[in-house]
């Protein structure tokens, strides 16, 4: 009866659909799938010569080298700092700003434009501006501190760090602070916008219901707004953390191509992507490209673990309608 009838729509899909999808598949295959596989394979090639393609054999040496490399560990630490300190910090500031913006009606668009400006600014340019702001001698930060009688601080110039572990650690802390401020500022634009969108999506009647009951603003924010905003919050967190694992350009703009103050050979502020870039830069050295590949695979694995954990936690914490 009806079952025997052929579905004409289905019949037409079968053959031609792939033809239409082919260009997309091709592009994805060439620029995404193949490089991913190739990176994975290369990372296991021992003494791989980039120019000739020769290699001595397959082994996991590069993974062991990378993991035991102090620069890689430093890169890992800095990247973790960006992902799990800077991102929450930026989100917290953005949330407060968004809550403030949400409660005003006048000039909301104006403020939103100001907060959105970082988004249209070049990361390198902004990073350079920040490195000027934190310049020891003519930076804005020290000028402002000077008004309060505070001596100039060597934010990123790292004077006297050579030979002194204590000075080095202090300089590292200051650099982390500058990196934090830069990341918070950079994240504001999109986060405020997204949070504001999330806030505007919450039905006003929840607030009216709470107001009839005489529930205070603070309690409403804590017990109604934040839980209802959780899908937005988790979305921002997941995407920002993934983005943070790719941090590179702003670090170079802030701290220079050596990832640290002059005289520092430890690549103080290097990130995972920076580590991969440096290894690729030495592509003529046998095995360097494989090291880069190994580091890239480790990076991908870490992102995957983090995303997996986040999605697990999301189910427990986040409320979806």
């Amino acid at each position, binding site marked *: 009866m009806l079952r025997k009838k052929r579905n004409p729509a289905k019949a037409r899909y079968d053959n031609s659909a792939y033809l239409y999808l082919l260009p997309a598949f091709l592009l994805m295959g060439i620029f995404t799938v193949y490089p991913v596989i190739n990176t994975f394979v290369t990372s296991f090639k021992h003494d791989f010569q980039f120019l000739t393609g020769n290699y001595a054999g397959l082994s996991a040496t590069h993974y062991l080298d990378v993991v035991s490399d102090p620069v890689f560990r430093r890169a890992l630490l800095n990247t973790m700092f960006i992902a799990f300190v800077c991102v929450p910090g930026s989100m917290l500031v953005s949330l407060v700003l968004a809550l403030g913006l949400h409660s005003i009606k006048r000039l909301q668009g104006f403020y939103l434009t100001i907060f959105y400006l970082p988004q249209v600014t070049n990361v390198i340019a902004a990073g350079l501006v920040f490195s000027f702001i934190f310049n020891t001698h003519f930076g804005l930060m020290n000028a402002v501190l000077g008004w309060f009688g505070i001596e100039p601080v060597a934010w990123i110039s790292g004077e006297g760090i050579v030979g002194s572990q204590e000075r080095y650690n202090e300089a590292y802390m200051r650099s982390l602070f500058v990196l934090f401020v830069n990341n918070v500022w950079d994240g504001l634009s999109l986060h405020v916008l997204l949070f504001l969108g999330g806030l505007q999506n919450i*039905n006003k*009647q*929840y607030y*009216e*219901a*709470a*107001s*009839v*009951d*005489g*529930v*205070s603003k603070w*309690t409403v924010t804590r*017990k*109604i707004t934040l*839980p*209802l905003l*959780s899908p937005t919050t988790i979305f921002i967190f997941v995407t920002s953390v993934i983005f943070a694992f790719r941090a590179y350009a702003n670090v170079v703009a802030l701290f220079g191509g050596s990832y640290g103050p002059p005289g520092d050979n430890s690549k103080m502020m290097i990130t995972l992507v920076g580590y991969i870039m440096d290894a690729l830069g030495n592509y003529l050295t046998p095995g360097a490209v494989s090291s880069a590949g190994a580091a890239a695979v480790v990076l991908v694995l870490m992102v995957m673990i983090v995303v997996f954990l986040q999605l697990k936690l999301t189910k427990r914490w986040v*409320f979806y*309608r």
Partner: protein
Amino acid sequence: MKVSLERLTKTFDEKGKSSRAAVNRLNAEIKSGTLTGLLGPSGCGKSTLLFMIAGLHSTTEGKIWFGEQEVTNLPSEKRGVGLVFQNYALYPHLTARQNIAFPLLNSKNLKAQTQKKLDELVKEQGVNVKYKSYVDSLVAETAKLVEISDYLDRKPSELSGGQQQRVAIARALIKNPSILLLDEPLSNLDARLRIQTREEIRRIQQRSGITTIFVTHDQEEALSICDEVIILKEGTLQQQGTPQDVYDHPSNQFVAQFLGNTPINILKGKIESGKLYVGETEWLSLPKPLPDQRVNVGIRAEHVLAASYPRQQTLPVKVVKSFRTGGAFTAEGQLPDGQTLTFLNDRNDPYRENDLLRVYVRPQTMSIFDDKGDRILEC
């Protein structure tokens, strides 16, 4: 508690336009312990009025009294009202139990009040009860009243519309409000559930004895469960009274036309030397003399009677159509001057197209309005 509204006015400022009064100089008194319906078509200002009583909308002019206390400028939370929103506004991330307990756990005012009550109770009975477990017992009690005890640990999304609605009512009732306000409580429910739930609201209201005001655009809903209805049109009060009273004795043509499942017949006619004419046809002599003028005559379908034997003061009608809606049989007929008259059809021996019959109407059951629509006489 009694609610009195005195020349209550609310205007909304619209950009570029002159302000429009959503509620216009409204006087009304809602008796303590009754269920009162605010009834009117969409945009008549009934929800605005409800939110003004709740304190969510400010008052432009006029006064609101709860009992002997004026509350016009009192903020919402100090008025002690329970409000149920049209879409319930249940917090979706909390269970039914947490929703109901929310006001008592999170409002400073209510917390203090409830604590005081608990202290008295403790003094009286000499048992020590913690605040939280007292709230739990209140939740259980309220849930029992609205019959949702079995669903307390579900989230709103796991509840049916009717259950959500009862949770919302419970959340309003647990505050022990002096007045319960319901905004279109049944509009989100399907037809069957609507009838069931309106009886439920009636039962809850009678059991709790709380003064309840609810907004509806559905006249059947209002007429079936209310002690009194207030009918609004464009922000002005048209009539206030018991359902039977407003149905039988509408104060103007708007009320007459708004009420009733089968729309009331409005026939154009005139009064000349004590006699009522429909069109130019003389129909009947009025029991009370009225000045000569053009009139509109309101006649309900159920009051049109077929004359089974020749008698005076009848009108000839030619049947044009007959209708059946479920169990209701109606027919539409044409009067000599072309006006249509709807009347009940005989279930067993229905009139058919082109049937001719004579009908009469008892003068006591008709409403005669002047040609502007204000009532002038009821015979």
